[in-house]
């Protein structure tokens, strides 16, 4: 039965020692232990978070790169296409321009030729008329050198007049 009755001395000693032990251990052991454990868990968590963030950034970067590359490729294609269009257009324009110029030159030439032709014809006509007059003058001089010829001619004129 003594086993079941707590001894008063031991109760007091246990109370004093346990409370002292609690206070001492709280200060000397549990405080540094608990805070270090917490600190360590926090730093591990931080490291994990940072790694995860870096991983995300990495993949972000990669996709960014791909996007940039794609954009660059598209840009290149666009520029090439535009350049081709521009060159085509320029070629067409040049062709058209050349044709137009050629046409105009031909036109001008034709006009010039016409003018020259007219001038030449006029000259020829004048020359021919001069020649005719000279010939006629010479003929007349020769044919009417006698009085009979002059008389005959007058007679033919008068004849003509009469018939008219």
């Amino acid at each position, binding site marked *: 039965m*003594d*086993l*079941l*009755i*707590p*001894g*008063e*001395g*031991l*109760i*007091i*000693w*246990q*109370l004093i*020692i*346990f*409370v*002292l*032990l*609690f206070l*001492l*251990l*709280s200060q*000397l*052991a*549990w*405080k*540094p*232990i*608990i805070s*270090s*454990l917490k*600190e*360590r868990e926090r*730093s591990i968590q931080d490291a994990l978070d940072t790694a995860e963030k870096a991983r995300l950034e990495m993949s972000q970067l990669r996709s960014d790169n791909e996007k940039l590359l794609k954009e660059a490729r598209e840009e290149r294609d666009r520029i090439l296409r535009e350049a081709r269009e521009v060159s085509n257009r320029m070629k067409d324009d040049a062709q058209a321009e050349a044709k137009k110029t050629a046409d105009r030159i031909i036109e001008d030439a034709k006009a010039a030729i016409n003018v020259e032709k007219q001038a030449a014809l006029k000259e020829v006509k004048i020359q021919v008329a001069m020649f005719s007059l000279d010939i006629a003058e010479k003929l007349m001089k020769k044919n009417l050198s006698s009085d009979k010829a002059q008389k005959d001619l007058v007679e033919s004129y008068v004849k003509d007049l009469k018939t008219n």
Partner: protein
Amino acid sequence: MTAFFNKISRFSLLLTLLFAGVFSVDAKASGDSDEPQEKFNASEVILHHVMDDHVWHLWDGHYGTIFLPVIVYSSEKGLDVFSSKNFYDEHHNIVDYNGYSLQHNKIYLAGTHDKVFDLSITKNVAMLFINAALLLLVFTAVGKAYKKNAGKAPSGLQSFLEPIILFVRDEVVKPNIGPRYEKFLPYMLTLFFFILFGNLLGLLPGAANLTGNIAVTFVLAILTFIITNVNGNKGYWSHIFWTPGVPLPLRIIILPVEIIGIFTKPISLMVRLFVAITAGHIVILSLICLAFIFHSVWIGAGSSIMILFISLIELLVAGIQAYVFTLFSSLYIGMAIADHEHHDDHH
């Protein structure tokens, strides 16, 4: 939970391998010296080993007994301090000293039945000092290691105890007390390791049965009781005195039950630890006594093997009881500080 038993059983196996040899040697050694003496009284021997004493008897012979100091107070004679050696004459018979008499380990004023107030450094008090000193030694070293190894991996003793500290924090205290567990963590850790170390030290041959003493478990239970009720919130007390959501006549019946419940919790803590540890000691001692009862070496050998296995179980029990005491303390505190608002919706 399984992980914990695994851990404990691995740990206990290690310790048993260390101590089992000592146990059997001890049993045989005392067998040799006790045998020719008067008729052997097993229950007396066992109770003597399990209970507190004013001397620390390690082995028979001249220097085998440590006489511990006696500190007594009585209104008649005031405070007195003297060695318990004074109660024994040279033939180891109990005699009166200076007006005090020792009867069944209790000190009375000589010639009367008036018990004096006994603050002696008894075997258990000495054991308590040893336990506390060991705890201080171990955990201040570990605390220092944490400061020294800040930001590094734990090493040595620190790495051995860290999983146990983490177990107490993460498996026992945190889930049972809830988000405000940190306030109670130092107490719970002290409680757990005090009981664990006390239980393990108590298994050493010649050691005192500290955590199997009802005075010790009484104090531990009272501390948990005080902490629980001091921290109890409005919800906790309203549940006790005016359980919400229960019909009025039932509340009147529940009230005394709840009030009794306040006290049965610490009593169950006190009795559980005391019984578990004392019973273990009694079983081991009974097995040792078998050899002396039957005066047989063969039975001694057989019971030594039995003791080996019981010791294994005892090591398991040492861990489990420390765990259970801390677990239930956490549970009671957790119940007292939990938020009860949601209960009204339930009923």
